[in-house]
């Protein structure tokens, strides 16, 4: 590989581990490596480290340490929360309320429950900015509603949901409320009590922690069953030898992210808004996706008409800019992102969308660079596109 400059703008997909986080993890591979469930001193050392991380996570989201359960990541947390709620509460009912812009870890779990476990799922629509209307949540609650699961912040278009309002509605109705806060941690303030959530998912690699580790917050009193059965770890609710080093890394990462949140968010918001303004000014026929202000500080998502996302990505990649598109074509599906369709974009516009997601490592110079190279790339691709303003969609 050449040593050309790489500007990483895909922090919503995953982030680099911070040096402080890796430093915190390193002692737990070779030097200390006990099984936290072992009662000898090597095991007890490990146990203390896990419990310290549990406190760090709890502190960051306004919870009690005994309400934090470590998992293998955001997807597992989402699956566990939703499947457990559906199973434990089936005598009460089989209705779940979610939104049409959730992450696939939520949507596909709901679809599984619909198809295989006889659940009824309401997929609430969103407005053109990607927001769920709390009134819709209220109206959807039925006798047999056992769970509301609405994400805190969208991973594609960055839109923040009115979680506190939805939480209040859920509480009044006495319905369990889960939120996928995977994108929210480190980006916006998260407080399980202000939000009135019963369950909350998070994942370390979205805030400069390691991949493959996450947590589920389970409010005291919420009855759960296991997604993973086996040993007595995590108070018998999540089996598997504790992922020691990664759990330590999660603890450190969330502690840092939370301490630095106000300054970090302010800086990200500034970079984000410069990027958005710059793109909209320099390139015609571009639209911003997601809410203008109620959005993640680091999220830029635009649709560039007449060109296709992957080509745009690959050209940016060749120029050293690592981004992401709303087109899931690598997965073999020809459909563009369900989120972009849910906010009402026609297919051909959704296909031409681009997500630039900022993180700790990004600077003003990165924004300048993107604003320098992007217009030319768009122009090149448009020159080879059969579509244009006069010939927009020969579908």
């Amino acid at each position: 590989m050449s040593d050309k400059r790489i500007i990483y703008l895909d922090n919503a997909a995953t982030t680099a581990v911070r040096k402080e986080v890796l430093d915190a993890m390193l002692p737990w591979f070779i030097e200390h490596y006990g099984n936290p469930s072992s009662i000898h001193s090597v095991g007890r050392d490990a146990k203390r480290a896990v419990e310290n991380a549990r406190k760090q996570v709890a502190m960051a989201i306004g919870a009690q340490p005994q309400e934090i359960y470590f998992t293998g990541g955001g997807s597992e947390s989402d699956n566990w929360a939703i499947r457990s709620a559906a199973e434990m509460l089936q005598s009460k009912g089989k209705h779940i309320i979610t939104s049409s812009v959730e992450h696939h870890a939520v949507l596909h779990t709901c679809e599984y429950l619909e198809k295989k476990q006889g659940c009824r799922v309401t997929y609430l629509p969103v407005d053109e900015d990607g927001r769920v209307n709390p009134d819709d949540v209220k109206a959807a609650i039925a006798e047999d509603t056992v769970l509301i699961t609405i994400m805190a912040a969208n991973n594609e278009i960055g839109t923040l949901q009115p979680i506190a309002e939805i939480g209040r509605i859920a509480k009044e109705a006495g319905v369990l409320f889960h939120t996928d806060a995977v994108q929210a941690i480190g980006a916006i303030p998260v407080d399980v009590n202000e939000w009135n959530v019963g369950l909350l998912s998070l994942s370390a690699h979205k805030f400069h922690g390691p991949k493959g580790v996450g947590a589920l917050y389970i409010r005291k009193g919420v009855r759960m069953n296991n997604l993973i059965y086996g040993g007595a770890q995590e108070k018998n609710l999540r089996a598997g030898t504790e992922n020691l080093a990664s759990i330590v890394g999660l603890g450190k990462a969330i502690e840092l992210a939370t301490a630095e949140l106000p300054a970090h968010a302010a800086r990200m918001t500034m970079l984000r808004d410069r990027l958005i303004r710059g793109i909209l000014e320099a390139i015609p026929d571009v639209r911003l996706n997601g809410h203008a202000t109620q959005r993640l500080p680091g999220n830029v998502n635009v649709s560039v008409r007449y060109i296709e996302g992957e080509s745009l990505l690959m050209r940016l990649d060749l120029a050293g800019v690592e981004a992401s598109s709303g087109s899931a074509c690598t997965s073999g599906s020809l459909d563009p992102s369900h989120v972009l369709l849910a906010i009402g974009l026609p297919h051909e516009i959704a296909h031409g969308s681009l997500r630039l997601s900022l993180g700790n490592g990004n600077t003003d110079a990165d924004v300048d660079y993107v604003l320098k190279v992007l217009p030319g790339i768009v122009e090149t691709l448009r020159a080879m596109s059969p579509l244009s303003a006069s010939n927009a969609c020969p579908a």
Partner: protein
Amino acid sequence: MYSDKVMDHFENPRNVGELADASGSGTVGNAKCGDIMKMDIKVEDDIITDVKFKTFGCCAAVATSSMATEMIKGKTVSDALALTNRAVAEALDGLPPVKMHCSILAEEAIHAALEDYQKKHPQG
């Protein structure tokens, strides 16, 4: 994921553009699926003397369009009609399985342009 040949044709696509005096022209695919290819060909004495394309689509779509134009240029109409998507994919040192549909699109685009030519030149 993509071969060097695919990346070369994506970065430096051959024969991009349109022919003002095309003998035949075809557009296939649709924006809904994320791929549209337009081919213009110029035929003289049953030989394809020039060809240009425009593509809205992913890397593989651009590269297969580009490679396909190279493969038919200078060929007779019937040789061009015999070009398969597999041959285009092979010439690119292969495509990821999920991208094979792009090569089919390239084959279809050539066929569409040639059929247009034949329709316009029934004696040809």
